[in-house]
């Protein structure tokens, strides 16, 4: 699944408009320091959207450091690379980051740590109709969802409970194995309510005028008074790499921050890069999905408060989903 962003894609993207980045004004001391190649593993999907600006920089060689960004189809590929030390930075689902951290830490300390939240929630409640405006409106209804036995279930049930609904009695959640099934139900059944992740949600809404996004669960999470955020993607770094190349890591995070800003500010331009990176096939869909994916860059002080509460929700639902126990202090790496 190696998919380095192609030079061709870069050319078309640069033609599309002037880059919002100023060429990095390197200080003399930085010029002397050798450039480090940061090997970054990303997953083909929403969590990589925020990285497309950085990927373009990497291809053009205009980043603060050299980045070798590769997108993979499955975490199965990323985990071995991470533990073998063949990638330095990886963008993983939040709970998997905690699991990998837990499983690889030894008495000498952690091997993998979280440095940033890169994507907030990607789940939305969709409705074929106009009756639902908040989670409490779901009382007495049937909600179709995917993600049984995984984060989507735990998140949805947590939010329903916070809204005063007991799943199973006040509201029926029917889990389907395939997002396509939920999409088809929504499209075909007036009054149907379903929970879908991006980019399915965008796809259904785009294709069916009667289906609309009723609730953005990321928003609902915050609105229900959770101090944490609903998190999907976390950026992790190998502790050894962070210790060896603190500057390179800091530079990567800085470039990532700019990249996230670029994606959120210029979704039209970013959409083309998203298509070029092979994450989404059509630019219009990509453009519509970008805001819904809540691409962010939360580091330092913001990291732990955003992430820990979310992980504790998962932990309460299924301890194993975060590696058996809540990750401790050494999970969060604050690189100032």
């Amino acid at each position, binding site marked *: 699944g190696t998919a380095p962003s192609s030079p061709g894609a870069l050319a078309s993207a640069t033609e599309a408009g002037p880059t919002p980045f100023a060429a990095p004004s390197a200080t003399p001391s930085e010029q002397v320091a050798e450039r480090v190649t940061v090997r970054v593993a990303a997953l083909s999907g929403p969590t990589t959207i925020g990285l497309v600006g950085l990927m373009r920089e990497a291809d053009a060689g205009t980043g603060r450091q050299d980045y070798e960004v590769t997108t993979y189809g499955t975490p199965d590929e990323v*985990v071995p690379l991470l533990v073998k030390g063949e990638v330095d930075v990886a963008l993983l689902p939040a709970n998997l980051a905690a699991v*990998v951290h837990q499983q690889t830490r030894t008495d000498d300390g952690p091997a993998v740590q979280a440095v940033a939240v890169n994507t907030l929630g990607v789940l939305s409640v969709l409705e074929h109709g106009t009756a639902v405006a908040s989670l409490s409106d779901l009382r007495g209804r049937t909600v179709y969802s995917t993600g049984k*036995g995984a984060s989507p279930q735990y998140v949805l049930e947590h939010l329903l409970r916070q809204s005063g609904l007991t799943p199973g009695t006040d509201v029926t959640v029917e889990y389907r*194995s395939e997002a*396509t099934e939920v999409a088809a139900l929504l499209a075909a059944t007036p009054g149907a309510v379903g929970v879908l992740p991006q980019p399915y949600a965008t796809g259904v809404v785009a294709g069916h005028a009667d289906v609309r996004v009723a609730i953005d669960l990321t928003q609902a999470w915050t609105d229900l008074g959770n101090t944490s955020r609903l998190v999907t993607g976390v950026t992790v770094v190998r502790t050894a790499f962070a210790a060896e190349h603190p500057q390179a890591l800091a530079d990567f995070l800085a470039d990532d921050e700019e990249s996230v800003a670029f994606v959120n500010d210029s979704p039209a331009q970013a959409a083309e890069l998203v298509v070029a990176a092979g994450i989404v096939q059509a630019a219009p869909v990509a453009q519509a999905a970008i805001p819904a994916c809540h691409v962010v860059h939360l580091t330092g002080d913001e990291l732990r408060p955003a992430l820990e509460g979310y992980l504790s929700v998962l932990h309460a639902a299924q301890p194993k989903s975060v*590696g058996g126990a809540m990750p401790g202090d050494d999970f969060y790496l604050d690189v100032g």
Partner: protein
Amino acid sequence: MLDVGGTGGVRDRTGRTGVGARPPRLTRRVRAVVAVGCWLVVWQVASVALDQPILLVGPWEVLVRLVELVPTGAFWATVGRTLADVVLGFTAAALVAVALAAAAAASRWVDALLAPLIATTRATPVVAFIILVLLWTDASHLATVVAFLMALPVLYTNVLEGIAHRDARLLEMTRVFAVPWPRRVAAVDVPGVLPYFVAGCRTGIGLAWKSGIAAEVIGLPVGTIGEQMYQAKLFLATADLFAWTVVVVVLAALTERVVLALLERARRRLAGEPAPPLVDPAGGAR
């Protein structure tokens, strides 16, 4: 001087030896145990060498997990649930495959009609049709349906090939004597097709398990092996994953043994064979 045969009698798959063969010094059973032992050692060495328990745990850890798992009632309930689904799917596939292959052999039209269907079933990735399957069944029967769909083309193809390679001379004989078809099936067709069917069953049972579990990993019906493996995978609980894999392999091997024993029994009954089989100096040709 007595060793006129040199290399001993031709031997057959069942380990029976011809009259001319030396009696095997080590029994099959001992060899099987030693072989499994060898692989366990290889596994242990590999896991120690890799030293990444997230990716590869050793047999000892797996055994520890198994010892924890096996005595629980939940374990047996889970095993029973998945076993029932897979066996049902395979059995249905075997029956349907034999019926369809017989129909295809009897009529060119049926053959022509089935050919594209089987070719499609054989090659279509599960991702492509899983949604259609879920239309007609719910996720809790997904394993049965998928196991059925995987085993069907294997068994169909083998049975059809077996039918094509029946003894043409004996078929002519039954035609001349106008032997009623049920007798012909018992005397000529079944013995000719059986080895192909056996090969198909060996493969088909493995595939039924493999794909049945894969379907459970997709559909996550409660209390199934697939659900356990999905969880283990999702949470990188590698020891659990391997423990359940061992369980699946053992169950598949047991299912295979039972099915083959039943087939052997059916064969014997058809042949009206005496309980201890005659020693067969021609060897091999069962």
